[in-house]
């Protein structure tokens, strides 16, 4: 979707402010927001793609004026309500009205193993890859209302396939619970001038990872 999260190429946000390496959190609530988001993700009711879609669905005025962990909190609340695990009334009151639904609960003893295992997104597909390294491709012009990982700034632009990563779960489908629908995934390189015009640095490039249905032969 063309949400506020798709920020590439926007202007006016000011300089980037570096941060010391040992800085982890600004406040205690951020620790809990991180942990709650990960723990509820482990409950298995929604995918990481649906989680990202919940964040990009936050109205732009709120998204752009919220800190990153505040965006996570808002998205977590929305996901809990959408999946019938918590009601808006409970969130407003700040306490549970009754017992919860059965979910897979991440236990303390399983945390390290779960984080170390991760969730691989590569899949086997029967088809062979449509594009090969070195091939010229164009990112499709598309404006889906749902989740996608094709940033607006590359749509309609022509680049070159650098790497075929293999087949991966398609976020567009997985985010709406419509199945993993794995597709070939490509690293595609665009010249900065193709993306940004003649004033762009002629020596710079931008690579994105793009699923096969995001691309067409150029």
């Amino acid at each position, binding site marked *: 979707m063309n949400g506020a999260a798709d920020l590439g190429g926007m202007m006016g946000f000011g300089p980037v402010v570096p941060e010391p390496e040992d800085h982890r959190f600004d406040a205690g609530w951020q620790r809990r927001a991180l942990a709650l988001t990960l723990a509820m993700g482990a409950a298995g009711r929604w995918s990481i793609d649906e989680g990202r879609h919940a964040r990009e669905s936050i109205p732009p005025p709120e998204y752009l004026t919220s800190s990153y962990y505040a965006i996570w909190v808002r998205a977590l609340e929305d996901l809990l309500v959408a999946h019938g695990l918590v009601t808006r009334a409970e969130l407003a009151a700040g306490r549970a009205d009754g017992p*919860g639904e059965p979910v897979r609960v991440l236990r*303390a003893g399983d945390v390290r193993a779960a984080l170390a295992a991760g969730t691989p997104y590569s899949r086997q597909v029967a088809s062979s890859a449509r594009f090969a390294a070195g091939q010229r491709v164009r990112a499709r012009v598309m404006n889906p209302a749902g989740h996608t990982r094709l940033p607006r700034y590359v749509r309609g632009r022509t680049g070159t396939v650098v790497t075929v990563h293999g087949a991966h779960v398609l976020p567009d489908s997985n985010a709406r619970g419509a199945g993993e629908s794995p597709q070939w995934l490509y690293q595609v390189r665009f010249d900065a001038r193709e993306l940004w015009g003649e004033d762009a640095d002629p020596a710079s490039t931008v690579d994105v990872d793009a699923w096969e249905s995001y691309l067409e032969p150029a």
Partner: protein
Amino acid sequence: MVTDRAGDAGIATRVAALEEILVEKGYVDPAALDEIIATYEHDVGPRNGARVVARAWTDPGYRERLLADATAAIAELGYGGRQGEHMVALENTPQVHHLVVCTLCSCYPWPVLGLPPTWYKSAAYRSRAVIDPRGVLADFGVTLADGTRIAVHDSTAEVRYLVVPMRPPGTDGLDEDALAGLVTRDSMIGTGLALAPGEVRG
């Protein structure tokens, strides 16, 4: 987006209430939350990635394996898992300087770098890294030699990128541990360079 230092009045209360609801409902184990926080606050961080880079600098065989299959090479040192399932290493050279961003959210290689710094998630970085990478590097005090190509990598899928910075001159006599001390988090994202011997990590 604003920083948390700038606002978010009331959110601490809101998050505490949310946690209470989720615990009451039986959805989360409070001890599991503590364990998640402890993992990323104390154990998993950029010193992991620094060890990977230092090994690549000192062991040509390891460097080759890292560039060919980063996920497997990183697993050799015991690192892997969430948000590092599909790793790719990008080696800086005098000709090419790599810079990693996630314009759409905050995708970042957690097993080797830990949680992303605030600026990595900020609108300022996500918007500008792709259109004005030299300007972003200037914000970090980094100026590249003329003619160096900047290769920006927008992490739009589940592939996660680790930059292998160039080994600084004058480090021939240093062992792997000393070299790892020169590898900053920012140098593994591409917003910094590895430190010269004697420079202090920020």
